[in-house]
């Protein structure tokens, strides 16, 4: 059963009672909220995700609640709790949904040490995965959303989960977080895509979440082998260009920005080195999303 199949009253009952057991990729999260804005957001973005038995085992325990302070009467806020403990300072009410996503990232990034977790978007086509690590502002999420709407399977927007045994990428398709101008770019690029209400004045500016394509969500159990590492860089007015980059430098950049490279010691080194062995590494500059997607298509069709 998927979240979208629950009757609205049943969803509310679960969110305020035993929690909704939401499966995203390899994880089940127990989610509580007493906020209608969160309930609407979950129904919009997570309708295609399986809901499991609430008597089962959950990997993570996340709630978004109205803080019990006087302030809630004149300036409504949302507070993220992990297993009953406040994770961040409360934020304005309309940021509840992005904050929930940050909380889910936090849970994976701090606890899922059964994986090597790289800070990167990952997409798959014809059984091969492109890993896109990049700092904020590089246009990584825009490109990731663009590819996900043009035949690439979305595997992750923020965190690439790598198995330690065989160096495969495990899918964790969740909503793609888009910021500022890229929200408008994407609504034009993919008129059929579904977006959450933009949350304004977050510490990242305006943030909206794009629902992950249904096929990507459905293929939650298909891992795939990485074939390319591409560092995107959005540069207004730039010609599209794909240039090879140093593997050793790529290793260092990915290791430094990974969530838990150091946790795994020699094993982490071996797994990451194995990925570098099997991947072609590129710097990618773009300004036009359509053209960018074409370049990726030709990459995927190469033998």
């Amino acid at each position, binding site marked *: 059963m998927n979240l979208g199949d629950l009757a609205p009253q049943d969803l509310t009952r679960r969110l305020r009672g035993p929690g909704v057991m939401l499966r995203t990729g390899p994880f089940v999260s127990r989610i509580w909220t007493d906020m209608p804005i969160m309930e609407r957001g979950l129904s919009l973005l997570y309708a295609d995700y399986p809901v499991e038995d609430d008597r*089962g*085992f959950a990997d993570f325990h996340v709630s978004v609640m109205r803080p019990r302070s006087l302030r809630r009467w004149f300036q409504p806020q949302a507070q993220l709790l992990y*297993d009953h403990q406040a994770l*961040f300072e409360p934020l304005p009410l309309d940021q509840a949904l992005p*904050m929930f996503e940050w909380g889910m990232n936090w849970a994976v990034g701090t606890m899922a040490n059964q994986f090597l977790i790289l800070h990167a978007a990952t997409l798959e086509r014809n059984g091969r995965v492109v890993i896109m690590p990049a700092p904020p502002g590089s246009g990584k999420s825009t490109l990731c959303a663009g590819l996900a709407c043009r035949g690439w399977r979305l595997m992750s927007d*923020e965190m690439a989960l790598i198995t330690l045994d065989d160096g495969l990428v495990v899918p964790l398709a969740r909503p793609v977080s888009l910021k500022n101008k890229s929200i408008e770019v994407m609504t034009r690029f993919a008129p059929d895509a579904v977006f959450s209400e933009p949350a304004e004045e977050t510490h990242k500016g305006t943030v909206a979440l794009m629902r992950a394509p249904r096929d990507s969500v459905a293929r939650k159990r298909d891992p795939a082998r990485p074939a390319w590492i591409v560092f995107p860089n959005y540069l207004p007015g730039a010609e599209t260009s794909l240039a090879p980059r140093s593997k050793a430098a790529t290793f260092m950049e990915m290791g430094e920005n990974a969530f838990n490279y150091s946790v795994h010691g020699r094993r982490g080194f071996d797994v990451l080195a194995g990925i570098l062995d099997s991947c072609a590494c590129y710097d990618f500059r773009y300004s036009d999303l359509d053209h960018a997607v074409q370049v990726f298509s030709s990459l995927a069709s190469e033998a």
Partner: protein
Amino acid sequence: MDLPADLLTPVLRDPTAIRSLRDADWDLLVRQGRESGLLGRVHHRLAEAGLLDSVPEAPRRHLEAEWSLAEKQWRDVRWEVECLRRNLAVTGVPIFLLKGAAYVLTGLPSGRGRLFGDVDLMVPRTALPEVEKELTLAGWRFDPDLDPYDDHYYRTWTHQIPPLTHFLRHTCVDVHHTIVPETARVDVNAKKLRDAARAVDGSEDLYVLAPADMVLHSAVHLFNEGQFERGLRDLTDLDLLMSRFAAEDAEFWSRLVARASELDLQRPLFYCLRYCRLILGTEVPEQARRDIARAVPVGGGHRWLMDLLFTRALRPHHHSCRTAASGAALWLLYVRSHYLRMPLRLLLPHLWRKAFRGIKKGDATADVEGYTT
């Protein structure tokens, strides 16, 4: 009154207890274990008992994940000690490793599956200025926000200098000159500890305390210092230490009791034996229990009070194991720990200040920015 479900302690006591757990129990056990810093230790206990395969896959991944983290910290502790050793070599000062670092460097089971905070070491008091100087030259720094009150508090009322953090590795080291506060009502002679200490294998400048002293130090730390966030973990350290030492040395228990009396630490040892046995089922021979009970005349009322406080303070550090009474118990034990170290006339203003500083905003919650892009 029924206390809420503590699933963690029974598993630490007897790993086969996992056989009766359902999925919903694992859901709670994993959280209790993580919050108490004991999930890696649960992994270690289950692996030793050959029971890992009986753990359902989803919770088992959490045990393995936390074990990876514990193994990383185990390596980090070894490296930090190596850095300390290299940087202090010029001084010729012997380094006495305490607590977690000692367990790791001597390969004790209490060093495995454990999360570490600081590296604790002890040097002779007279060597403190030299050690402090060498460490600051090698990149260790005092907290820049340390105010003169805190600095004064550490140096006057505790048995260590303020914690030092390395500016590159961000690791933290606590340099002690004895194992209980200098002014504490329990007076421990640091020289006696150093004289009995043993060299770490293959090293000329690293030492660890003798087995009995290691247990006594860990016991003093747990029962006199009033910090219980990691109380259950520290109790399992004691359980593992004593079980290992008793297996290696038939005379261990009598040596332990004799040493406690020599160092005037019978009371913490009494609590250690009592609560290890009550909570974790540690096998303590009757003779040792009788000897220590005789040395610590405790009235029924006192014993009742201490049982009440410690059995609450030593529950898993998780909201499911907290009651209104456990908050009170923790506060009472905290006040007690200060009373053991400071005269009452000095204690009252200190606690006043602590309570006042406690309302400052922010430590528990992080800024959202660290986890997003």
